[in-house]
């Protein structure tokens, strides 16, 4: 290799100091509000998603307390409706999807060797929008106007006739907020992945987690418009007298379900595919070898992405419309079988062929595989015709989708959190506490949700606030409640682990696990500019190629924010471009959008008056600024 001689260390230190100044934020609140650093925004997203995970978990505990014994008196029927709606909606829209995005927002730019995400201001905007949506739901819930129509808000129940008041509007508008945020993030992620990869990181060399996020972001772009459209139509029926879902005037209630599931079916994969990426990254590092069958893994991810949309059609035409919502999770796991089988095969082969080290992240991977196999089996069970009719709308379904969502996504997420925590914060989490957390949550999870299968087989319907004694449901329900509190104990240990770690000094090394990805080439946590010089990549596992030094390319400006743009497939350097400075406008734009969205729940004129501050904020945002030679607006 024709390596130019190494730069003198002090030259590099000087460049780093200059970059720190150029890419740094102002101190204090102003810096907090104006930052466009993908790491700061992502950390904020992470904290927020976990807070709401905890809140939705508390609602789950309340429901389990109510159901622990027959004839429970803790919750009224109405309150119970609110609890499962807010629990389900929070888990799906405010926790599961955004938390995956949060991890990606932090890691993807680092993994591809970039200085920031492609659209940093859009990214900042997305966080505030997301927060707006989360607060809308939960403030309403605390004001006792929380939604009570289930997490998929079917018409006619959610329509003007059966849901007077504002509860259904709150639900619909929460979705608009969070989906605007998710779409903004996805456009940013796709562009970052396709145009900002380090020179030499061809698509074939791209890490599997980045592949997973590419597929997820594309799915988001095609799936989420559907739910935004359908909730807007719902609001319009409720507030402006349109008749989309009104049978009497030529509308149709099933139309709502079509549009909802065109989003809802892919939604499960939008949660699940990033988790597959976590598992691959963790397996690679702790099996101490590159993932076996990299190409097959990529093909499987892409196949799952496509199937997710194809399947919606099978839902609509093959399963019969009335059973739509019920068979949803079932067929999800059926179709997933083949490509996920490939993935599981490759992971096992990787562990087999490697020299595995069973640190906590790896435990989560094993827990994931075990749970996923059980979930797959129950999926096959529900799919058999006679059982099918028997089990729909019973606790079997509740058990099944919690297996898919918790076993399939939350377990890998906890593994990922333990694994990348040093990169997020500069501290390594305790292994001992991590193991306690794993075992409590893993066993508690099985204790909670396995008996629900049996409850379903015994005919207990979902969404009931209580049940009479003497049906043989008592022991299973009690077990489920004890399990839920065991999970909660694991969650408490998790929080303790994080808090204790954060109170220690930030002393994690850059690469505590001797992992192969570029994110481990920079300090933990990384400086604002990520990389002093742009890495030059020549393998799938760059840090395992040459353990003494990392090949890089110099030449990007240090005195203003500059990035390199590379070609989509081969990642050949094409041009340099400016990257935006910190700015308050995305925050103000999000504030203006919030006023507009919330206002529109109460009066359609908010759409007109609310547009004025929004237009002002957007003008401020897009008002071009000339910083570097090109002058970069976003």
């Amino acid at each position, binding site marked *: 290799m024709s390596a130019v001689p190494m730069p003198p260390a002090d030259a590099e230190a000087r460049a780093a100091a200059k970059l720190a100044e150029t890419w740094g934020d102002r101190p204090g609140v102003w810096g907090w509000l104006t930052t466009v650093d993908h790491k700061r925004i992502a950390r904020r997203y992470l904290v927020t998603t976990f807070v709401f995970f905890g809140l939705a978990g508390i609602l789950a505990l309340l429901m389990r307390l109510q159901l622990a014994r027959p004839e429970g008196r803790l919750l009224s029927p109405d309150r119970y409706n609110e609890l499962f709606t807010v629990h389900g909606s929070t888990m799906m829209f405010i926790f599961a999807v955004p938390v995956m995005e949060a991890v990606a927002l932090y890691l993807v730019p680092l993994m591809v060797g970039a200085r920031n995400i492609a659209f940093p201001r859009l990214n900042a905007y997305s966080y505030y929008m997301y927060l707006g949506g989360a607060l809308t739901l939960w403030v309403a819930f605390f004001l006792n106007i929380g939604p009570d129509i289930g997490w998929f808000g079917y018409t006619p129940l959610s329509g003007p006739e059966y849901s007077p008041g504002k509860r259904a509007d709150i639900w619909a508008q929460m979705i608009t907020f969070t989906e605007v945020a998710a779409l903004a993030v996805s*456009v940013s992620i*796709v562009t970052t992945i396709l145009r900002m990869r380090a020179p030499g990181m061809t698509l074939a060399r791209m890490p599997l987690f980045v592949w997973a996020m590419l597929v997820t972001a594309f799915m988001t772009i*095609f799936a989420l418009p559907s739910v935004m459209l359908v909730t807007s139509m719902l609001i319009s029926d409720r507030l*402006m007298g349109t008749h989309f879902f009104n049978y009497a*005037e*030529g*509308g149709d209630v099933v139309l709502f379900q079509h549009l909802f599931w065109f989003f809802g079916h892919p939604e499960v994969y939008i949660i699940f595919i990033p988790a597959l990426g976590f598992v691959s990254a963790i397996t690679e590092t702790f099996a101490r070898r590159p993932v076996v069958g990299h190409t097959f893994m990529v093909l499987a991810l892409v196949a799952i992405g496509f199937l997710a949309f194809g399947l919606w059609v099978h839902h609509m035409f093959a399963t019969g419309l009335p059973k739509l919502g019920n068979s949803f999770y079932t067929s999800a796991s059926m179709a997933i079988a083949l490509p996920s089988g490939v993935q599981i095969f490759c992971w096992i082969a990787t562990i087999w062929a490697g020299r595995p080290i069973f640190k906590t992240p790896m435990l989560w991977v094993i827990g994931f595989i075990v749970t996923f196999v059980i979930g797959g089996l129950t999926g096959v069970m529900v799919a058999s015709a006679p059982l099918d009719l028997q089990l729909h709308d019973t606790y079997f379904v509740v058990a099944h989708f919690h297996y898919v969502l918790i076993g399939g996504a939350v377990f890998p997420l906890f593994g990922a959190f333990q694994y990348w925590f040093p990169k997020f914060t500069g501290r390594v989490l305790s292994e001992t506490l991590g193991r306690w957390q794993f075992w409590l949550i893993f066993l508690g999870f099985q204790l909670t949700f396995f008996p629900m299968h049996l409850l379903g087989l015994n005919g207990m319907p979902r969404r009931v606030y209580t049940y009479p004694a003497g049906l043989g449901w008592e022991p299973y329900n009690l077990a489920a409640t004890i399990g839920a509190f065991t999970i909660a104990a694991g969650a408490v240990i998790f929080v303790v682990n994080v808090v204790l770690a954060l109170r220690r000094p930030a002393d994690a090394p850059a690469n505590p696990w001797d992992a192969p990805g570029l994110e481990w080439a920079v300090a933990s946590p990384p400086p604002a500019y990520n990389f002093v010089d742009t890495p030059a990549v020549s393998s799938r596992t760059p840090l395992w190629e040459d353990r003494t*030094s990392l090949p890089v*390319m110099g030449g990007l400006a240090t005195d203003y924010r500059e990035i390199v743009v590379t070609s989509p497939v081969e990642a050949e350097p094409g041009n340099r471009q400016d990257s935006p400075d910190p700015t308050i406008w995305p925050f103000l734009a999000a504030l203006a959008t919030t006023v507009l969205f919330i206002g529109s729940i109460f009066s359609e004129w908010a759409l007109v008056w609310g547009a004025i501050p929004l237009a002002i904020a957007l003008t401020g945002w897009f008002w071009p600024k000339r910083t570097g030679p090109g002058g970069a607006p976003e």
Partner: protein
Amino acid sequence: MIRTRVVGDLSTLPDHAFGLRSILFWGVIGFMLVEGTVFVLAGGVYLYLRGLSPTWPPEPVLPPSLIYSAIFTLALFATELPNRWLNRRARALDLRATRAGLVLMTVLGLALLLLRAFEFPHLNVRWDQNAYGSVVWMLMILHTTHLITDWADTAVFTVWTFTHDVGPDQFSDASDNCAYWTFVVWTWLPIYALVYWAPRLT
């Protein structure tokens, strides 16, 4: 932290780019995909509701009048000519022509909005009359929103180019803006066909 060794230099790369080579344009494409999906789904809703109704439009509603929409459609597609020209001039970094083109597009955009305003009363149905009216208004409002936002964006940007020193990145913005306008023009075609012609094909 791992030591580094320099194997290349990026400082010789060009410092601006147009069209697909610029990442901003990829953001524009991303939003076109999102909005395009919304249009396709909204069109799907229209056809779905049409399939449920024995007559379309449902009796006794009349189909939308053709005349204003015809004028609008012709005018809209005519703006593609100056729009393409502006795109070429912007890419050639021709400041005078770019400014002139932006002014022209702003004026034309306003004229189109006026024409659009005449269409609404001639839809011959209100949004709250029946599901047919609801979906027709939805399609029209979706497209009109794009007209308005693109117009506002162009107007603001035009002002900027007259008050500031225009750099290569702003020429690139002007060019992206043209591409977006092309999107707004062409997405009108299927919506026009649905709103104005689908009720007549039975």
